[in-house]
């Protein structure tokens, strides 16, 4: 391991395997610094298991959501492929077959999600259509040469994947250094397809059962916007000349709008393409499905509190539109919850949780007793029970089991009634409680929804619903209640069905009421002179106010009151539930710090108030005054905040030295000489260059001995 060498150079030392420390497993991190009485191992296992379940569920959701799009794409491939196969000699077909079939796939601006979509797309294509799927990224293809290299490299690889007995030959090709031209590509395609054609029948069945006879080569341009015009144009022009030799299909992944095709390609090039448009599900709908399947269900014991959910949704709506990031945020919440909350060990399926309660340690019992929601519960009990709860672990465990069951039932009811209320609120104009169910969910989670203004206006609007609408909504509600898992809603369903029946009986009676109103209208038309007209109008108004409500209106009131009572009894905020801390993750701040970090603010805090991070008592200082105990860079930073755009270095140095020597040299007169101490000077220069490194200032050429401030604010 000597580094002696005649010339300068870099030396690489690979770490020897013996010295390598045995890396601690993730589980160890989980229990780091904590005693095991808090079940950290079990928590970790629970967390892992839960996340596995959630993850497979999200994958399932994504698969379902993409299915429609992928089916359309495959049928497009099949169609363009069949045209290539038949090779009709007809004039028209010859014209058309000279165009490259192209699918413009509009995926939306959430670029981070695209990778997953493309990955599953190429898997689907490889499973059902063709082994020859190539994905290209703009940054890999700065020139046409790189593009073709990438293209052929991926194609040759997938030929190894499909028929492993060809491996030898493929190695030969790659050793020979592939000539990257379309001609060699078409030669390769010919050889590959011919080989599969001349195979023995038994082999043929295995390979062609999944793929089509002469499978098309699908080239996916993942990020169309980032490709340079030249590369795309050249590629299209070149491949259009070989389109008769092998079936080629292009897929353009577009994030913005399909207009980009016209912007990137001139007419002479786009005329070589036969473009069809495909649009993926909008990311908002995607998110709605994810929330519906992951959060608004009792399937998973883990829940997000209102604030946490709001943080995640805000990041989605305000910043990135990325469902993947949302799920990542959700994952972080899961991990954080199981990591920080010792009682999260009970955050599992009800039966399992009940079992676990029995084996809780004394420490954990104390943890339960210190939960705010549990303390509230204790206070509401009679005094003997209070004492028992606080002193006897076994009694506590018993009660905890029933409380957990209550919590479970609460959730079952909550989601059903929430969906029911959502049916009502979406039929209202201007959606006072939000259009999406997630908005309604947030409103109910945070506080008692019936105390809010929005709920008041919702109820008022509900009282004005037309009959047809009301009946339709009620029918939907009945469906929701019937399909819900909770059995305690049989009464509710009965009640709703009774309402529906009464609405039907009403029909005859409403006709009569209409007659009355019509007659009064006729009377109104008779009056011609102004005085009388006014008088009758006033009378009508009076009568309307005092008029007894029609039967329909009475019934409508009843229905709305009934719904109101449902909301009040079942949609109580989660925070009010005893033991909610076990399943709800509610430290929104941690999540925000991790997911929506503010580097500039953190930097400013660190420099302006070093105590915040260093936690050194001597650094505690009043706002506005500059302590000389702070690190030099903090002093320099604070001083520079008081300057304008250009900072005079000499003044700055003087101010710095004044601050630094303020306490050290208690006698300012002895330092009165203009000469600044050399050490202080050096410290100043170091601090200033650190600030420059951090990007707060830069040297300026406008004035000598001045630096320019790069941030604004201050004076």
């Amino acid at each position, binding site marked *: 391991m000597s580094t002696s060498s005649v010339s300068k150079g870099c030396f690489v030392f690979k770490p020897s395997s013996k010295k390598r420390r045995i890396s601690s497993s993730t589980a160890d991190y989980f229990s780091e610094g904590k005693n095991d009485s808090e079940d950290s191992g079990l928590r970790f296992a629970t967390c892992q298991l839960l996340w596995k379940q959630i993850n497979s569920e999200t994958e399932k959701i994504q698969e379902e959501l993409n299915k429609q799009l992928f089916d359309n794409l495959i049928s497009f491939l099949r169609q*363009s492929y069949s045209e290539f196969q038949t090779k009709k000699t007809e004039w028209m077909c010859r014209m058309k077959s000279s165009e490259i079939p192209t699918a413009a796939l509009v995926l939306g601006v959430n670029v981070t999600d695209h990778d997953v979509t493309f990955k599953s797309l190429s898997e689907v294509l490889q499973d059902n259509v063709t082994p020859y799927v190539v994905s290209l990224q703009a940054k890999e293809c700065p020139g046409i040469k790189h593009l073709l290299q990438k293209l052929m490299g991926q194609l040759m690889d997938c030929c190894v994947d499909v028929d492993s007995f060809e491996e030898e030959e493929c190695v030969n090709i790659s050793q020979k250094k592939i000539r990257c031209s379309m001609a060699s590509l078409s030669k390769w395609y010919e050889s590959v397809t011919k080989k599969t054609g001349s195979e023995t029948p038994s082999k043929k069945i295995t390979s062609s059962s999944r793929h089509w006879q002469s499978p098309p080569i699908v080239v996916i341009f993942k990020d169309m916007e980032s490709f340079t015009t030249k590369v795309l144009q050249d590629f299209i022009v070149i491949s259009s000349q070989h389109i008769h030799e092998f079936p080629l299909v292009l897929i353009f992944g577009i994030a913005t709008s*399909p207009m980009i095709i016209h912007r990137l390609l001139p007419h002479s090039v786009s005329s070589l393409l036969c473009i069809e448009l495909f649009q993926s599900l909008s990311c908002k709908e995607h998110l709605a499905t994810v929330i519906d399947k992951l959060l608004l269900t009792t399937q998973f014991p883990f829940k997000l509190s209102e604030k946490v959910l709001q943080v995640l949704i805000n990041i989605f709506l*305000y910043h990135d539109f990325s469902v993947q990031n949302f799920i990542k945020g959700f994952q972080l919440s899961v991990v954080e919850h199981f990591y920080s909350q010792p009682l999260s060990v009970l955050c599992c399926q009800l039966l399992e949780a009940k079992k676990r309660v029995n084996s809780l340690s004394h420490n954990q019992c104390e943890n339960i007793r210190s939960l705010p929601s549990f303390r509230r519960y204790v206070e509401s009990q009679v005094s003997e029970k209070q004492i028992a709860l606080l002193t006897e672990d076994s009694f506590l465990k018993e009660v905890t089991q029933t409380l957990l069951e209550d919590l479970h039932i609460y959730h079952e009811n909550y989601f059903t009634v929430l969906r029911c209320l959502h049916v009502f609120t979406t039929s209202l104009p201007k959606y006072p409680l939000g259009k999406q169910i997630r908005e309604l969910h947030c409103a109910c989670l945070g506080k008692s929804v019936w105390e809010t203004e929005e709920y008041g206006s919702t109820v008022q609007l509900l009282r004005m619903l037309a009959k047809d609408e009301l009946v339709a909504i009620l029918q939907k509600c009945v469906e929701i209640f019937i399909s819900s898992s909770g059995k305690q809603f049989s009464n509710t369903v009965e009640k709703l069905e009774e309402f529906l029946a009464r609405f039907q009986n009403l029909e005859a009676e409403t006709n009569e009421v209409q007659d009355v109103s019509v007659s009064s209208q006729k009377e109104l038309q008779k009056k011609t002179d102004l005085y009388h007209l006014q008088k009758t109008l006033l009378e009508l108004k009076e009568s309307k106010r005092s008029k007894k409500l029609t039967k329909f209106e009475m019934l409508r009131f009843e229905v709305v009151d009934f719904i109101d009572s449902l909301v009040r009894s079942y949609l109580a905020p989660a925070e009010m539930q005893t033991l909610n801390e076990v399943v709800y993750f509610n430290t929104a701040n941690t999540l925000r710090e991790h997911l929506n970090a503010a580097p500039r603010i953190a930097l400013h805090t660190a420099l302006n108030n070093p105590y915040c991070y260093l936690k050194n008592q001597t650094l505690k200082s009043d706002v506005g005054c500059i302590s000389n105990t702070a690190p030099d860079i903090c002093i320099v930073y604070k001083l520079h905040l008081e300057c304008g755009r250009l900072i005079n270095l000499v003044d700055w140095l003087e101010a710095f030295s004044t601050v630094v020597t303020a306490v050290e040299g208690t006698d300012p007169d002895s330092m009165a000489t203009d000469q600044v101490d050399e050490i202080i000077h050096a410290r100043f220069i170091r601090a200033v260059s650190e600030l420059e490194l951090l990007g707060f200032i*830069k040297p300026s050429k406008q004035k000598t001995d001045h630096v320019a401030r790069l941030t604004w604010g201050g004076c």
Partner: protein
Amino acid sequence: MPNFEHPEYPEATLLHLESMVPCRESQVSSLLSIFGERQHFSFPSIFIYGHTSSGKTYVMQTLLETLELPHVFVNCVECFTSRLLLEEILTQLQSLSSENKHDSHVPCDTFNDFVRLFKQEIITQDLQNQTVYIVLDKAEQLREMEANMLPGFLRLQEMTDRNVTVIFLSEIVWELFRPNTGCLEPFTLYFPDYSIVCRDLKELRHLAALNFTKYCEPVVRGEANERDTRRLWKNIESHLKKAMQTVYLREISSSQWERIQQDDGEPGHLKGLSAHAHVELPYYSKFLLIAAYLASYNPARTDKRFFLKHHGKIKKTNFLKKHEKTSNHLLGPKPFPLDRLLAILYSIVDNKVAPTANIFSQITSLVTLQLLTLVGHDDQLDGPKYKCTVSLDFIRAIARTVNFDIIKYLYDFL
């Protein structure tokens, strides 16, 4: 009596040739006279230019194939490096004679190698006694290759001392090719457009192919005969117009057009590519884009007037400088620094925006979406500059979704 006369070739071949190249007789006959007899030396290089689809490639291919002249036909777009181009020429030369089918790959890196290998190949192929033609299609690409390629090909006859003629096909004039170091001038030949009306024969053929069945419909139904052109035209006119607005612009694809025709439906329900111009963006991305647009099209000194609540008195005459007025949108977007973008963003968003990492990454993703472009170097860390590349219509649509009256904030529309 054929138009073409040449002692070398039989009359039947010439007649056949004539039938193959309508409207290009004069060009073909001059080419024939230039080529001369098989063993004659011809011009070292011929430069043929004309617009898109004026028949350059087709005429050359037909001419060389019908007369069975030894030739090599290479597309310069396809062979994007000089190495590929030279190797392609040599490979094609190898396969000229049918008995020589071994098709081995000849590595050829430089023009010097090419000249040597070319001479060898001519001898092995026994082609010394006739002119070999090398046709370089899309010769514009040669200008982007090594500087010696074009002059080399122009002098190939002299350098190889063989009977060879290089033919360049190009859409642009020779003057744009001429290297400033000087070279052997080729013989230039112009292919005019087929007619004044038709600019692009390929497109005409494309549209005709797509609409021919529709055109024939009255004849098939027996309502008109083939000669009744007026009537047939009337039938097809509106249909063609629709095709010109959609298929011609590649708004909808030809197969989609066909499907519409089969269903006899209106193309109205099928939206073209441009109909999907709407882009959905996250809330802050919308404001970032609006801020970028304002920064790109407003002079920086007017920011005070637009974004400060109490901007004090700004003299109107001073503010509205004549030459700046209305010209900003004509001049296009101007670059602006990151800080100005953020400052405008903070003042146009109603609630407080924290400068989080997400905001900065949103700016970067707007750049990757090509809605903003980074001006200058990519690696410039302090004070990067951007330009906003979206159109006024686009930004107005975006602004409408967040209830922001962007026109009020644009200097040009004051």
